[in-house]
């Protein structure tokens, strides 16, 4: 039994209804969120960052009310405020607190299932309300002083924002549990885009006409009630419900760990790069086949591909403007970095569970390494050589330098760096 749970007297069920089970799940969820927060905030973080941060923010906020807005606020267009509110509204999501294990027996008890989902819906909508209210309070000094908003107008606008948050959350939820893949993405664009567009338009048109804001809010409340009714009647979405819940439950954790852990990759069956398993080298010797596999794996991996493109793009920009001596230093530095990165990739490729199961002779690995890394560098080398030559000697003479530079960098420089890197890693 979970720690902290009160033991019910003998002769009574531990979970008498959906309410008991919901509270248990809610407590677990809050506990897990708190533990994630604790993992990044020990007392030093509280002492040096969180407490001073909160105090400073409170002081700044107080100043906004008492000493007036900063001068830049005069230049802000009125459309910026609904756009900022939309950023918060767009984050709204619905957690229904269904779990995979429910498929065993709870799913069959309709009263339990709908009870948990309804409570989950109320909890999620309350949280959306709190989140939007907090954002609204932060913006309030600007709304009041910059847009001359009255109390009634502010409350009406808050109500509109909250009801819009609920509508967006339920729309997103219904699309997400009913569709998968590209259909979901395609449907989410209009189903989220349309309410967001309406919100911006209503905000800009009727911000000083609270009666219209309240009418739209009321319409949105009816829409939300309709969406909830549709949701509770919906059948056959259990697995998607669980998946959607899990995604939202770990949103905070993934945000915290985004820099520390790689995101799990989506399962792919088809590859868009090297689709028909082609051989990259004419020779069918073992070293070429191993090298070819490593190259194909590199360019098929979405994260590696993105990093390759980003790095090449940044290096390209850096290569265009500086004088030739800086260009040479840059070329050398980027080659060392790029070669080292690919060397590390090569090592991780060889250490992969499956690759390491195969009995590779040392000389094959050694020969394959040079071929693989040189091939991986080809796109980068071509782009950098073009950038270097053309930006230094213009289009006419630049092409003359291109081929020699490519040969020097790809064969001479890469080989030299590789020998150096390999030796330094063997020590």
């Amino acid at each position, binding site marked *: 039994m979970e720690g902290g749970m009160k033991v019910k007297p003998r002769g009574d069920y531990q979970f008498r209804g959906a309410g008991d089970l919901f509270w248990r799940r809610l407590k677990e969820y809050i506990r897990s969120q708190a533990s994630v927060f604790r993992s990044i905030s020990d007392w030093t973080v509280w002492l040096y960052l969180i407490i001073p941060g909160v105090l400073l923010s409170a002081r700044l906020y107080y100043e906004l009310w008492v000493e007036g807005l900063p001068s830049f606020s005069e230049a802000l267009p009125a459309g910026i405020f609904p756009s900022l509110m939309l950023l918060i509204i767009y984050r709204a999501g619905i957690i229904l607190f269904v779990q995979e294990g429910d498929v065993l027996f709870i799913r069959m008890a309709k009263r339990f299932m709908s009870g948990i989902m309804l409570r989950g819906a109320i909890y999620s909508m309350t949280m959306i309300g709190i989140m939007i209210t907090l954002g609204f309070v932060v913006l309030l000094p600007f709304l009041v002083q910059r847009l001359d908003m009255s109390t009634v107008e502010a409350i009406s606008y808050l109500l509109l924002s909250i009801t819009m948050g609920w509508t967006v959350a339920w729309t997103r939820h219904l699309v997400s549990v009913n569709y998968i893949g590209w259909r979901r993405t395609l449907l989410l664009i209009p189903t989220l885009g349309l309410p967001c567009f309406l919100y911006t338009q209503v905000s800009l048109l009727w911000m000083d006409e609270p009666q219209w804001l309240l009418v739209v809010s009321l319409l949105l409340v009816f829409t939300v009630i309709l969406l909830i009714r549709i949701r509770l009647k919906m059948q056959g979405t259990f697995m998607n419900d669980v998946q959607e819940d899990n995604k939202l439950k770990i949103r905070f954790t993934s945000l915290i760990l985004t820099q520390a852990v790689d995101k799990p*990759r989506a*399962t*792919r*069956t*088809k*590859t868009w790069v090297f*689709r*028909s*398993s082609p051989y990259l080298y004419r020779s*069918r*010797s*073992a070293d070429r*086949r*191993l090298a070819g*596999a490593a190259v*194909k*794996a*590199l360019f*098929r*991996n979405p994260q590696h591909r993105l990093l390759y493109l980003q790095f090449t793009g940044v290096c390209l920009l850096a290569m265009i403007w500086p004088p030739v001596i800086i260009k040479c230093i840059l070329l050398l530095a980027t080659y060392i970095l790029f070669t080292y990165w690919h060397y590390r990739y090569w090592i991780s490729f060889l250490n*992969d*569970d*499956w*690759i390491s*199961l*195969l*009995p*590779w002779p040392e000389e094959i690995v050694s020969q394959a390494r040079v071929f693989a890394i040189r091939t991986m560098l080809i796109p980068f080398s071509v782009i950098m050589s073009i950038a270097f030559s053309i930006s230094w000697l213009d289009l006419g003479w630049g092409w003359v330098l291109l081929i020699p530079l490519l040969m020097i960098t790809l064969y001479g420089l890469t080989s030299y760096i590789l020998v150096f890197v390999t030796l330094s890693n063997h020590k």
Partner: protein
Amino acid sequence: MAISIDINDEMDLNLVLEVSIEEAGYGGGTPCISDICFQVRKGELLGIIGPNGAGKSTTIKAILGLLKHVKAKVSIGGSSGTYAYIPEQPIFYEDLTLWEHLDLAAAAYEIAYEDFVEHAEELLTGFGMSQSRDLLPAGFSKGMKQKMMLMIGFLAKPDIYIVDEPFIGLDPRATKDFLRLLEEERERGAGVLMSTHVLDTAEKICDTFIMISDGKMVAQGTLEDIRITAGQPDEASLFECFDRLM
């Protein structure tokens, strides 16, 4: 703790695997398995059977040298001294297609390219995987991944196959193809060490057995020997012997 895996030229010519595990485990004091000794002859299929958690997979891992704490002697005989391991949980490289996995395995085993292409095409057809040739295995079903592991194993034509729970996830057609290929390999002279739970299939295809319970060998030999150890009559099935001994 030490393990020695030898490619032994001086082994009995009929033996392809000789295992003597004094003790082995994952660390932390008490070993998971101990006193497990057996041999696999050319063309022999030896089944390791035992209940969940008995130590079947640990025995295989100890043989492959995958455990840190092992005191054992493992000798691989045969003409080339090679083995193929077919794991229970499929292992693969996410960014390589099925064909590239086969190609890379063939390159590592130094199989002539023309022979590889012919054999790989046969395997793809035999296992009904031709349509999946250029697909990434991450999206395969469990059974398809298992078939891929079997194909890679069969590609190498080794002296000994070490197969961990091969029937899990395989459809009847694939099971039949797997057994046919295994039979062909045994006729070629390859030995097979196979851990399995599927006792009725094991009874039909295995020549000899070792039964493991709580990390120790409780019976060894042919079905006849197992029956004698279990004190069962001549017509008793492997399941009845298993039930008696475990």
